[in-house]
């Protein structure tokens, strides 16, 4: 009888013998810790798990996970993972990538992975900066960002990553942050449960080159006002003591004060992960926090859809071909349809 050892695994079993080399205070430490903590709860064997990354600070991640792993090349983790999953649907495949890796040099592979819906998990560490190359603006840096390559401020308009992913046909889109371990662990589990590509954007602080980029969402003093945590079938509430809500005025989301008069929770926008329209609107809660009356930034699962996975359809076509034609016979293949015989009669 085979002894099931998976239940005995703990977070420690996922720590490697390699020294972790991120800068002290980097948000990546927290994310690594949460992933290592969640892993034993997923019911997976270590040898079935593969972490694949590209290039960048976050992409060192696989070296620190005691699973199979590949630190590939810049932007291509998504494509490497596609080939792996296409041939090994039995594996639990995790892609670790950053905003430069997945949205700049690897943007093409990201959108194509999402539309194909391989059953893999993408952890997109967004710190709005290039860290490993020492501080250039990234495709998610806000316009005007002063960085090494933009002394007068960036003139690039930034990507809205979740809107982009929804546009690419993603079947699972979520956002969390490095500084909220409980929320991050919960969303990691949900990402793993989703059958299809799970895209989880994690706001991650780069304390060396872009310190405080997300502090309004993560720090106690402003988190309640600026961060909106969405949960399935629950109204969109935020603010101190949930004093504010989001209501739909036609197609326009508006902030309402729950303490004022006749507004009740049932009047509010009720979150529904299955609603693509609402998910798209939610992804557009992307205002500059300095703007007056701006909408809060949403965290949680924006969207979740059941759609067939590429690897399953690929295998299905093979099964169908075998049913229709029989399992391939190499001799028949080499022979082809038309042959002729040359006899040794001439001489």
């Amino acid at each position, binding site marked *: 009888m085979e002894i099931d050892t998976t239940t005995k695994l703990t977070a420690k079993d996922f720590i490697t013998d390699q020294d972790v080399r991120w800068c002290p205070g980097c948000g990546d430490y927290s994310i690594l810790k949460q992933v290592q903590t969640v892993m034993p709860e997923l019911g997976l064997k270590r040898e079935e798990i593969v972490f694949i990354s590209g290039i960048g600070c976050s992409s060192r991640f696989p070296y620190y996970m005691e699973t199979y*792993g590949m630190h590939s090349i810049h932007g291509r983790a998504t494509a490497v993972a*596609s080939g*792996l999953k*296409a041939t090994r649907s039995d594996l639990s495949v995790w892609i670790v990538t950053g905003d430069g890796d997945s949205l700049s040099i690897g943007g093409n592979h990201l959108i*194509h992975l999402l539309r194909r819906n391989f059953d893999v998990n993408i952890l997109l560490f967004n710190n709005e900066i290039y860290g490993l190359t020492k501080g250039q603006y990234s495709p998610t840096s806000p316009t005007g960002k002063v960085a090494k390559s933009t002394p007068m401020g960036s003139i690039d308009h930034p990507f809205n990553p979740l809107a982009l992913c929804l546009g690419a046909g993603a079947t699972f889109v979520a956002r969390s942050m490095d500084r909220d371990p409980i929320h991050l662990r919960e969303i990691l589990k949900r990402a793993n449960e989703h059958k299809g590509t799970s895209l989880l954007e994690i706001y991650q602080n780069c304390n060396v080159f872009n310190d405080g980029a997300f502090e309004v969402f993560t720090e106690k003093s402003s988190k309640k006002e600026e961060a909106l945590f969405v949960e399935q079938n629950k109204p969109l509430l935020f603010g101190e003591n949930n004093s504010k809500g989001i209501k739909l005025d036609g197609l326009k989301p508006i902030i309402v004060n729950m303490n004022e008069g006749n507004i009740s929770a049932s009047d509010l926008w009720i979150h529904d992960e299955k609603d693509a329209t609402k998910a798209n609107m939610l992804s557009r809660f992307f205002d500059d926090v300095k703007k007056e009356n701006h909408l809060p930034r949403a965290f949680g699962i924006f969207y979740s859809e059941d759609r067939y996975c590429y690897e399953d359809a690929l295998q299905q076509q093979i099964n169908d071909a075998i049913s229709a034609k029989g399992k391939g016979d190499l001799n028949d293949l*080499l022979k082809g349809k*038309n042959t002729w015989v040359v006899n040794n009669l001439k001489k």
Partner: protein
Amino acid sequence: MTYRTEIVKQVVIFFAGDSGDGIQLAGTQFTNTAALLGNNVSTFPNFPAEIRAPQGTLAGVSGFQLHFGSVEIHTPGDAADVLVVMNAAALKANLQQLKEGGVIIANSDGFDAKKLKLAKYPNGVNPLKDDSLSKYRLYEIDVTKLTRTCLEGSGLGTKDSDRPKNMFVLGYIYWMYNRKLDATIEFIKEQFKKSSTLIDANIKVLNAGYNYGDTTETSMNRYEVKAAEVSPGTYRNIIGNQATALGLIAASSKADLTLFYASYPITPASDILHELSKHKNFGVKTFQAEDEIAAITSAIGASFGGSLGVTASSGPGIALKGEAIGLALMLELPLVIVNVQRGGPSTGLPTKTEQADLLQALYGRNGESPVVVIAASTPSDCFYTVYEACRIAVEHMTPVFFLSDGYIANGAEPWKFPLENELKKIEARFAENKLAVGEKFLPYKRNEKLVREWAIPGTKGLEHRVGGLEKENETGNISYDPDNHEFMVKMREAKIQKIADYIPEQKFDQGKEKGKLLVIGWGSTYGSIKTAVQESIGEGLEVSHIHIKYLNPLPKNIGSIIKNFEKVLIPEMNNGQLIKVLRDKFLVDAIGHNKIKGMPFTAAEIKNKIVEVLQ
């Protein structure tokens, strides 16, 4: 009516017309019929890059050259005996291919004022009507009119009635060469199985073309080309790209690995993807990736998981794959990279042939990045060579370049195909966990071949991480240690050179092992060099020929072979690439013979050079 039937040993027919005229199809059909009758054949399709270039123009001319005979045939022929032209542009573009005294079969409808103008003939000039073609035997047939007449009442519109023109011509050529129509009729039935009207129309026109030869009072002779005396056995016709696809399936099957083939559409490699996608019942997984980089990196992902990862492209696409090839060689995983070369640089000449990517394959990456490079020499050799590429990739855990080119990829020849059990076994082994308690797995520990183990995900206890960063010897951990880096660079080179112990020594194709002149070729120049050397030896010249399949590592005896000759001649369809490699390795003062015209060498071009060098 009776005709004189002349027996000939070999014939070159050149079919030419608009790219929408069905020239390639007519050529392919004649090839199959000739092959089925036991002739030796060699073909060379030559088409424009535009799918439908403006009708009637010189840019839109599509050609198909077919050489068949009862004698040995290694090239599509230097010059044509018969030139079939569907319009004025086709004549103008290809007349120089025709031998003096050769036959022109011209569709006279393609020579009206408009078509003559499109072909840029001066006002009032019609080559069919002046005596400019008096050196040739000209037969005019109004193919368009005869095809339309034949299909009156068939229910087809004018446009559809014009389409089977190629069948009329084909039928006529079948008559000329005493061929049966059976194979083409079968093809028509299969091709148009959704429309009995089209089946009937095409067969009717094909027969009409044949009967036209039989019933008209042309002074045309008929010809007979007897079956070739070839080694006994069962043969089929094979196109290079098709052979590549079959070789990949055969290799994956013999290695018992899933074939994962990822590519991005590109001329002239796409046909491999098309062919493989037809054979899903072999468990073949084809993946049309979003770009060249995704194609190769997904193949690397598949190899990491224990499949046979293969990617294919042509020069421009290979350039995009460069960084990932470097990754694969750092990961030391099996990977086959197919390059069906075309004219370069940049977009270059997409539909024309060239062998100018040898140096790209050998050296075209950052850092010290040795990979195996092997090249096919004929259409059917694509099968054996790509099979060998897979064997080396799997058994030596390395990326392997398989080089083909547009000429052999689209060319066809008869193939005495092997049986499954005649193919060399490919040893694919995954690492097993044999670690003692507390012992750590060393992913970069090597065996006597200097090859590391293939430890695939799912294997308990062998969890490990790989990547593109320099790694410490044996452990595979990231290492910036200076001595370790130098050691690993030399180790990766040594590993590739070690493969020379596991490949055959170089053999002579023809000629003595010592003498005045050694001709060294690689890739698709094989047929022309072989023919040229054969003729030269026949005329008493002291010349030998070796054709190198293994370009890195080279067979161990190349250096000693070269030393036995006074002169070395290296013909290449590039500006001199193998010559640089051999000069570098053996300090040999070789003579280059280079043709960079997007066209293969003729045998005569090589023979003339042999004669010149020996003077």
